[in-house]
């Protein structure tokens, strides 16, 4: 929004040039009548020092000129003024030297009318263009909203992990009231969704960390984000933004401060040879960056509440998102009892985390289901868990997906997992879908998640990129 505009003072917007060869001058209100010679004399010389003069007019709109023949000749003989006049393309009316005031006023009025007509037409064209732009903008907005709804409600916001600085041996202690940490981010701010830092040790229950994304010079990128440290065990903790950041890519610094009793210890990363990435702690530079990792999402999209799987969320019935990355690592369950001779599958199978997709890939088999297991997820009163599923390769045969939950440590083999895996959802190649489990008796404590896929009955399992993307957990008295 442009502020500060104000209407011009009367008589300053338009100028009419008047030749000195005319005996009379027109009576005009609201227009600056400027003699030709004065116009030439007052024109700005905007040439380089030492060069011949180059004239320009400043802050004047010349609607036209009333000249006598002699005036026109005089202007033609002044090369710099003539060049400027040619560039400005104002209309010139040649009048008789003895032209009366009335005649001159009439001609001047005609010039003004022509100018006004031109401006009116141009303004009309601008308005037409603006109207079209508004229409397109509205259409685009509507379409965007639809994409957002589809992406957000149907698929869950897709997150990708950006660069990270992995946690290492060194650490930094922050106390309340101190300046805190300033860390340059190794990724741009565009579509930034969240930032993780690594908590080295438990903090006091009333402790809180606040993150502000700062610009070198200029306003902050977003509102500060605060994260409570109550009950948080050591590991990665997340600062999610209310909305994924929009705008052009920019360079940002993460400013982190601590509020509360005692102190908090955050991990630093490997030593950096590049000074730009060295962390500043209370104004002093250390030769290490802060351990951190960043996530991107859909620009402008609001972020749902997130759950960190190390901490059981309150049983308040809210549905929280859990990123695949936060549930890692995944293991593949063996087929048979460990004393059996043959453990494996004849064809290629796997259970992996795909970094670029922020998803688990459980490659199915045509023989029997393949199950990946995510152990020791903390829940308080789990009533529902769901995952976005996706058969990513367009050339794959259909694959069946299932999501199961078992008490932690109870499932060690495929056979044990199968009783927890129902229902199954079949996807065709390229399709997205969801799979879920609901529990009439809420589960508490630690659970294992079971991610199962199957291509039983198909001819081959090639290109079966069966992905489990973002998960939703509902903990609480009300299911769904």
């Amino acid at each position, binding site marked *: 929004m442009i502020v500060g505009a*104000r209407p011009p003072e009367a008589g300053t917007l338009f100028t009419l040039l008047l030749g000195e060869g005319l005996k009379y001058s027109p009576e005009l209100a609201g227009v600056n009548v400027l003699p030709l010679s004065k116009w030439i004399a007052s024109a*700005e010389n*905007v040439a380089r020092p030492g060069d011949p003069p180059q004239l320009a007019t400043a802050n004047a709109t010349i609607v036209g000129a009333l000249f006598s023949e002699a005036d026109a000749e005089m202007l033609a003989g002044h090369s710099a003024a003539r060049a400027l006049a040619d*560039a400005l393309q104002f209309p010139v009316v040649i009048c008789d030297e003895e032209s009366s005031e009335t005649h001159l006023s009439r001609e001047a009025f005609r010039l003004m009318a022509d100018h006004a007509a031109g401006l009116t037409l141009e303004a009309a064209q601008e308005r037409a263009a603006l109207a079209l732009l508004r229409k397109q903008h509205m259409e685009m907005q509507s379409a965007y909203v639809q994409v957002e709804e589809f992406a957000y409600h149907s698929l869950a916001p897709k997150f990708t992990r950006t660069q990270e600085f992995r946690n290492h041996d060194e650490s930094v202690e922050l106390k309340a009231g101190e300046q805190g940490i300033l860390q340059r981010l190794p990724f741009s701010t565009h579509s930034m969704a969240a930032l993780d830092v690594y908590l080295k040790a438990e903090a006091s229950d009333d402790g809180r960390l606040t993150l502000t994304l700062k610009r070198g010079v200029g306003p902050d990128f977003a509102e500060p984000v605060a994260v409570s440290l109550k009950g948080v065990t050591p590991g990665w903790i997340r600062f999610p933004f209310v909305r994924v950041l929009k705008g052009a890519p920019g360079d940002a610094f993460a400013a982190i401060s601590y509020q509360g009793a005692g102190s908090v210890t955050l991990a630093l*990363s490997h030593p950096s*040879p590049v000074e730009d990435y060295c962390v500043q702690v209370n104004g002093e530079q250390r030769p290490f960056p802060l351990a951190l990792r960043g996530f991107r999402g859909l620009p402008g999209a609001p972020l749902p509440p997130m759950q960190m799987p190390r901490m059981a969320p309150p049983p308040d019935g809210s549905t929280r998102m859990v990123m695949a990355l936060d549930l890692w690592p995944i293991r593949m369950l063996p087929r048979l009892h460990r004393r059996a001779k043959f453990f494996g599958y004849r064809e290629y199978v796997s259970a992996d985390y795909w970094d670029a997709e922020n998803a688990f890939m459980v490659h199915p088999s045509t023989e029997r289901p393949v199950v990946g297991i995510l152990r020791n997820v903390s829940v308080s009163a789990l009533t529902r868990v769901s995952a976005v599923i996706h058969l990513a390769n367009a050339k794959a045969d259909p694959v069946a997906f299932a999501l199961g939950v078992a008490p932690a440590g109870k499932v060690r083999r495929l056979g044990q997992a199968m009783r927890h895996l129902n229902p199954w959802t079949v996807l065709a190649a390229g399709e997205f879908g969801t799979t879920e489990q609901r529990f009439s008796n809420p589960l508490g404590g630690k659970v294992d998640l079971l991610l199962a896929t199957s291509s039983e009955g198909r001819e081959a399992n090639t290109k079966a990129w069966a992905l489990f993307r973002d998960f939703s957990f509902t903990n609480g008295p009300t299911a769904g």
Partner: protein
Amino acid sequence: MTEAPKIALVVPTYQHSGLVNEAVASALEQVGGPDYVVITVNDGCPSTETRAALGGWAGLYPGKIHALHQANRGLSGARNAGIAYARKNFPALEAIFFLDSDNRLEPHAMALFGKLLESYPKGDWFFPHFDMFGVESTAHNGGPYSVARLANSNQCEAGSLVRMRVFDADIWFDESMKSGYEDWDFWLSASKVGFRGQRVDQSFFRYRKRPESMLAGSHANDTALRERISEKHRWLYARDGIARAVAEEGPYLLVIDLAEGTGSLRYAPDLRPEPLDFEALAAFIYKAVAQPQRHTLPPYVLLARGSAERVLDDAKWGPSYLTHLAQAVVYDNAASMRINPEVEEGNYWFTTEFHTSDRVVSPKLLKERAKERFQTADLVMLHISAFIHMFDARNADQAFSELLQGLRPPECFAYLPEWASPEPASNLLSLWRQFTERMLDTRFSNDHRHRFRTWRADPALVGPRDLPAVLSQNALGGSPLVFERRSEALHVGFVLPIIKFGGVEKCGIALARALRAEGVIPHLFIYGNQNAAHTDWLYEPFETVHLVGNGTLRDWRGPRYLGTKMAPEPPPEIMTSILGPLSGMDAVINAGSAALHHGLGALKRKGITTVSWEHLIETGPYGRSYGTPYLAIAYEGGYDLILTCSKALATWMRGQGVPGPKLLPIPNGPGFPMSGTAISDAIAARRERAPNAAIRVGFLGRMDRQKGLDRYMRIVEACRDLPLEFSITGKAVLDGAELPQIPEDVPLHPAAYELADVEAAFARMDILLMPSRDEGLPLTIMEAQRVGVVPVVSNVGAVPEAIRHEENGFIVSADDVVAETEAVLRRLVADRAELARVSATASADEDRWAANAKAVAAALRERRRD
């Protein structure tokens, strides 16, 4: 109304009547920062929309936005108009930002400008990253500001904040540049007078990138514009301006002592070291690994075992060794050098190897050969890209495997007296491997290092990693010689195909010595022969000495010009190896290198004055004349000046069509130095001889048919009855004719090379006989005259220019040498007073080389191209 703004935004516009509104709107959306004004400039746009748009903005924001309208002058003229208007109307301005009408500013730009002006007082302008919208991309601005890299590509976007002091120094945009690159020209003009840019490490400006702007920079236009830039900025592009800029901006060389694991950054031109311990070295290297296009790097890395880098400390030869290695790295990623402690048979031996790509050799064999080279080397030079790439590897095996793939490292040689090679067990390759393993284990080395890359892409510009290419592209494809340039002194390169004890070499050395007194600094380049005499006085006058020894440079099997064979054009890798080191000279004097003729055009385009120095027209067995003067005529268009050893030769060349003003005869003088005291002592010793002592008659020179040794022996026999003592000093040269029998009573002294031996040779004679069949203007005549030895010489070549008959010597007829020489000897035996008179006159002649040097220095200064 903005009363006293500190910053002006100049927005030139032409044909962007719609987009300019976005630019102006973005300019108005500023939050914080100092007061500013917006000066829009309508550059004579034919569209009324533009006038209406700018006029409308000025009307809405009087005093804040100013609308200038002018006749079309082009983008440079529009910017200049904005500058002129700003200076005149807002005297308190500190800086101007140029916002093209299709670009945008971010709202915090003004706040950032205020901070930059305050925080970087030395920054004369502040340039942005390449943040583009439209065709989206974000690239960084390429590391610290560098004049050397600016010579090859424009690091500074026009959307920069420029302090008023730049305009106050009369640096404005060139309005004759209407086809593009006017901003590049502006930064170069500012750099010329000492202004420097400062990069901004935060986004604040967005550049609209549209497909048609990509097409606008077509290759054809780019080439023409670059040539124009290069012509306009000779201060940088001529000679070695860019190499000196590289040297001024950062270290030229990173030297690593492989055994100790320490390093040093060496700064040109004197290669003074700045030591680094292992930690600092590792940090330096890994910073480059992480962000090779953002951090200043030296163009070369030298790995040394023991203290081998000492070879670089030799003021005269060190630059040559470095140049050889750098030259090899122009075409290959690595080169090796072996140090020899001794010369062989009184000679330095240099066989210069070149990159070869034509022979097909199995990869396995190539690898083995490369390993062998590195095992026996004392020094290895690596291209900086190849070096830092090694530390991208996971382990040493991978690092070496990738480096050695396809590598054919050329081998160079250096000399260091008393160099003791370290034990074979600590050969360079094994030390290198240990060092690499140690580096890969360091705390910086883990896959984490990849996370230290900047999120911005590298720009499509010359970056710090590309400095070797910058150096070679601007050194005629080769490697420049690194030397200290002293104020306004002319640096002149003498190019010779051989350095033994021939007359041509001695003339060059004598002239070089005399030029020093005229404030000219001579350098010696020996292009051709693979060995050079190891005699100090030959090199003493020269600031540096550089040898390129390769048979191709002595190849005379090219076509003929008027009967004289020319040299075929050498392959590019050899041609660039001889031109590159010359690129820093103000003038090059070619005294006999046939291959160099092919590089004259390139040297001249670099602003180097080209000079040929001609000595001798030879005569073939059938009496046909031939020789290098014919080649000078063939290539006359490529030379600015032709020196001749005699007036007669100059006259001959004029007769062949060479314009008079291009010719400068500099008659030869003595070919070896003697101090004034030594000369006086020699003259006094001769005069103190007993009046009736036998007159000593000597022959000094090559014992061959051309020099007339056979005639000398006949003269000896004819004068048997005279009280004369004959002697010969020289070396036998087999020229197809039999060597005449030399009687036992005619002592034969070995050829004299060392100064003391040459002085002794003249000390043992009173008369010098030169019964030659062919000569130019022999140096021996003047050497003899200098110490009072009376020359008796056959009338060939330009001998009359050195001898005034019966005054300072005697000339005998070429048709009757023996008889006339005998007559002269009899006369001098009979009249010892005449011998003494002629001896005294001969020794009183002026120092020719001093006069020659004055004339040459004046001619070079007159022809200097700046």
